[in-house]
């Protein structure tokens, strides 16, 4: 026996835990550590989809109609892969426009049409209130069963109890308090409630774990195994009939209910709130796309075992909707029963809280506030404290909706099973699909079409699905269901226009959804939208193009004063947030906010901010109140704006490309210029060096000539030496001039080579012979390692000798006075001949290995000369070698000295 106070204590304890979690989440969020910014929490919060209907109702449904309970999970599962396309787009639009409810979303898409918004809000309340009542019924029934352990006379809940004696009533009050505390406490432009979301996610986890636990208990506690359970079930003729497909099985329900749940899934106010408004990062969708279907699969895993267990073990008088609870109770497992109760409590409360929040925002944004703001005497009285009024109406709405649901539960719900109320609710929500989805992907959908579709859909929904329940409740004459209204057979609510072969549910879904769609498309095609609607259609359908340009669109024409706009914001956001928001705007558009007239962008921006707080419709009314002489926006202007926006985007892209191109060519120019500068510098240096090199011998020649002229009585010895010097210096000058000309010929490509097969070894020997005297003078040791049988190279022998002589004379020059050594090697390498000439002189300065081949290469110090030589020799040698398609480089050697390596290709004739 479970004491009533134990159950109450447990319920309160669990509720306190939820409060704590929500409070903690809220605190963390305000401290900047979002717990909700996480794909797992996001996916879990979406599982608010699984209500008490899932928790208790699935088992009930499975016991009556077999696998059909799966249909409402198949729809969302099939849709999940498309979330990236549909859901992401909705999220993008809502974030860009600060849209915080489904009603706002549909109203905004169709030109902020207040009538559409009101309709959506009212239909939502009509569709969802019974569903909330259903949750209350589940909680109340489960509570009663648990406390009274009254298994046999279900429904055990006494609907006649006066409300102040009814524990369910106090539960409703507690839920109202929780919802107000965490759902509508503050006014926020983003309308996000992290504390609440984290509590919802927690509840989703609890209901799943508990349901799995009960499943395991049934399979392994009451039966030997799942196999045993299924085997026993198969032997039961009543059960096996449910799972045998025959022509009696109503397959049409499979299709229509799956389609229904697919259409409705995203548009339940609670689903929209959690999937769109509370979304912190659209990348979370990617993970939720598979996590959420996985959750659905897990929570449905034990539905059949529990249903079979109940049917096999419990008396048939017990309602199958309560098996989750009654199975553990019947077997005296009170702890499990208590947990099962908590699981159901979780499933029900999460749905109630989220729905109440979403509906209250919707009602206040689309119905109450616009009403207050558009009635002159109301506006005069309340406009200055709009923020507190908004909050008050929302809280009031929460109470109103939940109490309405309580009344519905007390008055009507007794007559229906969980299932029928649920399907009717689904069918109501699915009516939003044509307007919402159509508006996302079809620019042609317009406000009149949406309105026509919604009205048609709801009329048929009411007629084919709601009306029969009213008849059943005994309010309307039964003759309607027997002969049709006024005896008109073709208007029979279950066989409209003679369509008789569908089940009542499928029949209702078929007519309401299909005529909704037809009316929406047909009216859209045959009417012209307003310019505002066209503007919105363009924006919604091409959101990925426009999201950053929203403020640029023409939504307003007219002028407003910044001070008025600021005042509006102050009323709703407070002064600090207002200043932050305005500063943000200034930064985004790089403009100074001058007091005085505000431009259209700022008006749009303020409208967007207000939308977040009080809804699009009210925001529009408030903005309109500060706009001076608003003018009608013409169609052409809208198109012009859109074209301009597109042009801006395109030309921005083009501009960026041009800028990049420009940057590239600037870089090229800079490089070329640098090269030219370097060349120019080199040329100047070359001229300076050549003239200097020419002046040096010239100086000697002039000096000696003058000496010889002025001193006729010179000693013979001196005279001869001086004359000799003059001749030598003249030769030096001539040589230099020849080298400069040579180099010019090579560099300009005018040099011609006379190529013949040559023996490199012989040419080297010839060069050494020419320098024989110099080598001997310095007493230099020459080491030759010339490869025998070297193949002939195809080359100009005179030019090669010039190169070798140059390299060898350098080597001789740099050899130390004592112990000088020069080594010469030749070697065949697979496609060429390698010639190496090295000395043991002071070597090449580090870092100059490449530079020494430049003409007139000089060491860094400009004021000092190279030790000896013109400095053109290596430059010419390099040109000659390269003319032969060979290469010349220096190599590091161990110890002092320089090594030059020449590679010459062997060219076959």
């Amino acid at each position, binding site marked *: 026996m479970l004491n009533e106070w134990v159950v109450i204590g447990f319920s309160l304890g669990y509720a306190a835990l939820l409060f704590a979690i929500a409070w903690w989440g809220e605190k963390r969020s305000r401290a900047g550590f979002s717990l909700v910014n996480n794909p797992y929490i996001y996916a879990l919060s979406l599982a608010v989809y699984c209500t008490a209907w899932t928790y208790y109702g699935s088992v009930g449904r499975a016991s009556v109609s077999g696998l059909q309970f799966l249909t409402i999970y198949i729809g969302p599962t099939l849709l999940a892969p498309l979330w990236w396309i549909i859901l992401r787009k909705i999220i993008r639009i809502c974030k860009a426009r600060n849209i915080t409810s489904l009603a706002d979303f549909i109203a905004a898409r169709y030109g902020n049409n207040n009538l559409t918004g009101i309709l959506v809000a009212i239909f939502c309340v009509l569709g969802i209130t019974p569903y909330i009542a259903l949750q209350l019924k589940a909680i109340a029934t489960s509570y009663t069963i648990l406390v009274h352990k009254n298994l046999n006379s279900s429904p055990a809940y006494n609907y006649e109890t006066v409300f102040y004696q009814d524990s369910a009533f106090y539960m409703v009050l507690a839920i109202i308090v929780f919802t107000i505390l965490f759902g509508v406490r503050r006014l926020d432009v983003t309308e996000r409630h992290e504390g609440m979301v984290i509590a919802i996610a927690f509840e989703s986890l609890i209901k799943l774990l508990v349901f799995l636990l009960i499943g395991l208990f049934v399979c392994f506690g009451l039966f030997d195994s799942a196999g045993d359970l299924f085997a026993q079930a198969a032997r039961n003729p009543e059960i096996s009939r449910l799972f045998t497909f025959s022509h009696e099985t109503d397959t049409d329900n499979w299709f229509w209910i799956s389609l229904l749940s697919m259409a409705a899934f995203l548009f339940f106010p609670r689903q929209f709130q959690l999937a769109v408004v509370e979304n912190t990062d659209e990348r979370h969708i990617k993970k939720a796309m598979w996590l959420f279907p996985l959750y659905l699969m897990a929570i449905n895993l034990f539905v059949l075992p529990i249903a079979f267990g109940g049917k096999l073990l419990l008396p048939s008088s017990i309602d199958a909707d309560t098996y989750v609870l009654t199975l553990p109770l019947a077997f005296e497992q009170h702890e499990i029963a208590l947990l099962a109760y908590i699981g159901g409590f979780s499933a029900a409360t999460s749905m109630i809280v989220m729905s109440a929040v979403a509906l209250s925002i919707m009602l206040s944004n689309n119905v109450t506030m616009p009403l207050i703001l558009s009635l002159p005497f109301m506006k005069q009285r309340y406009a200055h404290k709009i923020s507190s009024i908004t909050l008050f109406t929302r809280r009031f709405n929460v109470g109103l909706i939940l109490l309405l649901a309580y009344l519905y539960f007390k008055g009507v719900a007794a007559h229906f099973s969980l299932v029928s109320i649920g399907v009717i609710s689904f069918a109501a929500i699915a009516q939003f699909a044509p307007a919402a989805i159509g508006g996302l992907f079809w620019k042609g959908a317009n406000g009149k079409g949406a309105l026509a579709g919604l009205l048609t859909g709801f009329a048929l929904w009411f007629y084919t699905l709601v009306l029969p329940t009213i008849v059943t409740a005994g309010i309307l004459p039964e003759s309607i269901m027997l002969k049709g209204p006024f005896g008109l057979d073709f208007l029979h609510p279950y066989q409209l226009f003679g369509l008789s072969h569908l089940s009542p549910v499928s029949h209702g879904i078929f007519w309401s959804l299909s005529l909704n769609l037809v009316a929406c498309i047909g009216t859209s095609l045959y009417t012209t939208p307003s310019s505002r609607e066209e503007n919105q259609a363009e924006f919604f359908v091409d959101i990925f193009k426009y999201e950053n340009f929203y403020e640029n669109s023409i939504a307003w024409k007219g002028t407003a004063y910044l001070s008025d706009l600021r005042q509006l914001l102050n009323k709703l956001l407070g002064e600090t947030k207002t200043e932050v928001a305005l500063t943000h705007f200034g930064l985004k558009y790089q403009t100074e906010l001058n007091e005085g007239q505000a431009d259209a962008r700022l008006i749009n921006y303020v409208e967007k901010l207000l939308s977040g707080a009080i809804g699009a419709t009210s925001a529009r009314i408030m903005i309109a109140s500060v706009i001076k002489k608003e003018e009608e926006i013409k169609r052409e202007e809208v198109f012009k704006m859109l074209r301009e926006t597109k042009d801006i985007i395109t030309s921005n892209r083009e501009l960026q490309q041009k800028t990049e191109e420009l940057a590239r060519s600037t870089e090229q120019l800079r490089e070329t210029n640098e090269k030219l500068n370097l060349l120019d510098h080199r040329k100047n240096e070359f001229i300076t060096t050549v*003239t*200097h090199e020419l*002046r*040096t*011998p*010239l*100086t*000697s*020649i*002039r*000096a*000696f000539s*003058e*000496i010889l002229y*002025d*001193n006729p009585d010179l000693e013979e010895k*001196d005279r001869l*030496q*001086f004359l000799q*010097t003059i001749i*030598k*210096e003249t030769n030096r000058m001539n040589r230099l001039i020849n080298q400069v000309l040579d180099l010019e010929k090579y560099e300009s490509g005018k040099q011609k080579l006379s190529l013949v097969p040559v023996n490199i070894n012989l040419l080297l020997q010839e060069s050494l012979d020419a320098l024989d005297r110099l080598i001997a003078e310095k007493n230099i040791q020459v080491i030759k390692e010339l490869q025998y049988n070297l193949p002939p190279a195809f080359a100009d022998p005179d030019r090669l000798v010039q190169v070798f002589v140059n390299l060898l004379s350098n080597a001789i020059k740099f050899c130390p006075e004592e112990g000088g050594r020069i080594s010469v090697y030749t070697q065949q390498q697979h496609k060429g001949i390698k010639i190496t000439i090295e000395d043991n002189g002071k070597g090449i300065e580090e870092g100059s290995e490449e530079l020494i081949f430049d003409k007139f290469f000089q060491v860094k*110090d400009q*004021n*000092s*000369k190279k*030790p000896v030589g013109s400095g053109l020799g290596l430059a010419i040698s390099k040109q000659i070698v390269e003319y032969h398609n060979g290469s010349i480089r220096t190599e590091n050697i161990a110890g002092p000295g320089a090594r030059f390596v020449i590679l010459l290709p062997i060219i076959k004739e």
Partner: protein
Amino acid sequence: MKNSHQNKKTKVLLVDDEPNILLSLDFLMRKKGYGVFIARNGKEALQLIRAEQPDIIILDIMMPEVDGYEVCEFVKQSPELKHIKIIILSAKSKEEEIEKGYQAGADLYFTKPFSTRELIAHVSELAER
């Protein structure tokens, strides 16, 4: 200062890295009866300046390691050497290069190729002071 008015033999230091130019200058100075010292680079020149205290230096600019400007500045900035007359003899003939030579403290600047007669005339004049 001490030596300038005494009848001692005038000491001339020749600094250049081109042997043939040294050869010609050596001949010219000896013929005038001056004492001649020869340095083949800036380093040698600095050593000889300290050791021999020449009266006149004929100085090339482009030399390895220590160049003519540096030698000139060194001499003109040390109190006990600054009386030494310096004639720069260089192939550098651009105006700014000549200006640089005078700024380094040179008394005269001759560009190569030079007139032997003019050079001798100026050297004698400096030696007279």
